[in-house]
């Protein structure tokens, strides 16, 4: 008897990459391992798109694992936002696998490449698992799958600094995860359930309780650490700078986004309608941190000589924008945050991919290849790569006709709607800082002479890397001009999140 697969898609989003990883032990040859990862990513992307279509057509999906109804069993819950996240994660995943073959070949020793792909599949499984689950503790388990595999992926970077970066990420990430389970434990203590919607129902009914307040604070700090929200971002720049470029691309465009997704879940599903949220204090508390992050991280980025590190600091700043969207605490603000989350995944994905192309061809030491000086004269040597970098950079700055402009536009609209004029001005000002640091790279590549002794012959990255790169750049332009898809979806997702939670088992909307 064949199962009705579309009906059972929710658990398969986790189970398929999770089972593909151990099977991957069999394919030791790098080509086979790569092919396997690519096939699995394509399948999961297909599943994710199917789920998104289903959710858009028929409303949120709820799935009782093991036939145990929530709150006794674990419930998987897919609404528009989680389906959107699934498409984002798996889409970026497929692109980085396709892109990563040449990059991984040059940066990771051949005997370890199959382990790299296994770890990638595990990270994919963990991230998908976090997005689909409706259970607060199950989220922690999936978080650990993705975290452990990310630590290993980062440690695979060339050079010893990758090891210390992975170690620091491990320590801070574990503290974050532990804070998260302390928070979940306290919520469980006062509500007696682990199902997010069920927790929300209990909290709606009960008066404000000091244990709940502390629990939410711990959840915030724990997720903030994983999200690298300023000032909890200390692990991120080094981790991104020293990881293999394919890993940086994947993590920068998915891992922090999923952390933001958890934050949204806590604010809008767990705290849904609870007396705690009445003052919107929690969301607004994010605003000062978000703005401080936007400025301080951008300023630090300006003074970086390591391009990967510069982009990593820029990520911290961009996380500030997303958190700011959440901090408005309005439907439009949340929508703006979600829009920027999607757009930033595309922007940073493209930028890091371009960096990877350059690293492949410059080919000095791990840290040498990403120094601004090494990039001098690169405009003539790798015109296509640099052109992509410039386009993605423009999108990061927020020039009209790019996705970056769209997200900043909606953020400013949300600020105006709230009457926060100063915040709107600050958004523009901090975007100017991005001009400075992107310009430094562009200047080096196009206007400065190449370093003595370096190869100046024209040498473009292989097509297998350029194609995914240009696909993302094209997406940046496409969604910058035709904003319907992202904006409509984000607004639908945001307004769905503002619906009160009224019951379990799919009755959330």
């Amino acid at each position, binding site marked *: 008897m064949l199962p009705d697969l579309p009906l059972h898609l929710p*658990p398969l989003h986790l189970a398929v990459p999770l*089972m593909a990883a151990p099977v991957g*032990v069999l394919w030791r040859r790098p080509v086979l391992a790569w092919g396997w990862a690519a096939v699995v990513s394509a399948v999961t992307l297909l599943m994710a798109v199917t789920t998104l279509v289903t959710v858009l057509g028929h409303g949120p999906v709820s799935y009782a694992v093991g*036939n145990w109804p929530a709150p006794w069993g674990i419930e998987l819950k897919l609404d528009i936002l989680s389906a959107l996240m699934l498409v984002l994660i798996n889409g970026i995943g497929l692109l980085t696998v396709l892109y990563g073959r040449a990059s991984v070949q040059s940066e990771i020793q051949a005997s370890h490449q199959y382990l790299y792909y296994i770890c990638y599949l595990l990270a994919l499984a963990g991230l998908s698992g976090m997005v689909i689950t409706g259970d607060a503790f199950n989220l922690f388990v999936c978080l650990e*799958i993705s975290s*452990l*595999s990310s630590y290993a992926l980062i440690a695979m970077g060339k050079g010893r600094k990758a090891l210390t970066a992975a170690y620091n990420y491990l320590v801070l990430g574990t503290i974050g995860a532990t804070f998260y389970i302390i928070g979940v434990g306290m919520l469980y*203590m006062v509500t007696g359930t682990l199902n997010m919607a069920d927790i929300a129902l209990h909290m709606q009914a009960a008066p404000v309780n000091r*244990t709940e307040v*502390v629990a939410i604070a711990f959840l915030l700090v724990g997720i903030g650490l994983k999200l690298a929200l300023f000032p909890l971002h200390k692990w991120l720049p080094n981790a991104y700078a020293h990881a293999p470029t394919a890993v940086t691309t994947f993590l920068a465009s998915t891992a922090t986004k999923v952390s933001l997704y958890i934050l949204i879940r806590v604010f809008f599903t767990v705290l849904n309608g609870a007396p705690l949220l009445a003052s919107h204090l929690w969301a607004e508390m994010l605003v000062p941190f978000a703005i401080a992050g936007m400025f301080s991280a951008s300023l630090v980025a300006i003074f970086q000589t390591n391009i990967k590190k510069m982009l990593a600091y820029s990520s911290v700043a961009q996380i500030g924008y997303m958190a700011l969207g959440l901090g408005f605490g309005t439907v439009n603000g949340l929508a703006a945050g979600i829009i920027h989350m999607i757009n930033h995944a595309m922007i940073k994905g493209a930028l890091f991919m371009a960096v990877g192309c350059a690293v492949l061809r410059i080919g000095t030491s791990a840290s040498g290849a990403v120094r601004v000086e090494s990039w001098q004269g690169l405009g003539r040597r790798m015109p296509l790569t640099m052109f992509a970098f410039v386009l993605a950079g423009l999108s990061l700055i927020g020039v009209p006709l790019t996705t970056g402009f769209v997200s900043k536009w909606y953020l400013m609209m949300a600020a105006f709607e709230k009457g926060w004029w100063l915040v709107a001005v600050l958004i523009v000002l901090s975007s100017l800082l991005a001009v400075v640091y992107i310009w430094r790279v562009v200047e080096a590549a196009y206007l400065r002479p190449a370093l003595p002794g370096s190869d100046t012959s024209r040498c473009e990255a292989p097509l297998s890397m350029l194609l995914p790169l240009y696909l993302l750049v094209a997406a940046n332009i496409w969604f910058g001009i035709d904003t319907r898809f992202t904006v409509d979806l984000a607004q639908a997702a945001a307004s769905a999140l503002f619906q009160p939670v009224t019951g379990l088992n799919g009755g959330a909307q």
Partner: protein
Amino acid sequence: MITMVTLIDLVLFTLLGITAIAMLRIRDLFAVVMLSGIYSLVSAVIFTDLDAVDVAFTEASVGAGISTILMLGTLALTSTKEKTPRRQSWGALLIVLVTGAALMYGTVDMPAFGDAASPINSPVTDRYITASGEETGVPNIVTSVLASYRGYDTMGETTVIFTAAIAVLILLGSARTTDAPVTPRPATTRSLELRPILRAGAKLLIGPILLFAFYVQFHGDFGPGGGFQAGVIFAAGVILYALIFDMDRARALFRPAVTRPLIALGVLIYAGTGIATLFFGGNFLGYSAFNPHHPAHGQELGIFLVELGVGITVSNVMMTLFFTFCGRRRP
């Protein structure tokens, strides 16, 4: 209300606090590792006292056993002294004090310890206690919740262990490992071989340890235990053999070529059981579908299978971890 349990609890908790403070102050890492083993053991006693026998079992075998061995292996490869004097880090102290104060503030509204009326003893728990016996046919509620009601979590847990093994193989699995027999072997190992009493004692113990592992694996439905504890105990038996007799001989018995595929196999058994239920018409991991006429029998079969998967993965991961850490040559 002061009961005997509360009293024992108070004493043990105080002991735990003292151990933790000693761990903070001592700079000899060897002593700190030993203290952390003691800390785990005392925690295990407290867990038993608090009726969490499965957790106690796991903490004793993992915290006091495997963790300590891994740490000792690391010490052997690095150094046993903490060089930098403990910095008087006021920033760290401030962070910790603020966090601690927040937690203390949070305890104010917590239900009292041992209170049967506290919210966590809610309908969710009620069903586990009253209905799990009939629904799953497994008397140990922890096992039935772990493997069935929240089996999806446990699948994730098995994957976490698998991930750790892959990660450790990435980091330590090549270059410096001693695949060929090391010559000459360090003096301590050789002197160990000359110890008839130790060897005789170990010979007598290893058999029962391995047997006990199987007992724990298959008796986990009825008493404390299950795949995870069984896996750790089995690995502990092998580790004992490797420590006292010979690393190379142990590795020849449990070759990486065998253990590594088995790690993957365990995860596949678990997730495969989930997929199999789909073919029987149930939801993912809905074991009842295995036997539509007697759902409880289906549950028993499913729980047996996934526990087997957990046991296979965990035992092989633990052995792999041990061999990778302790097989690495000192730099």
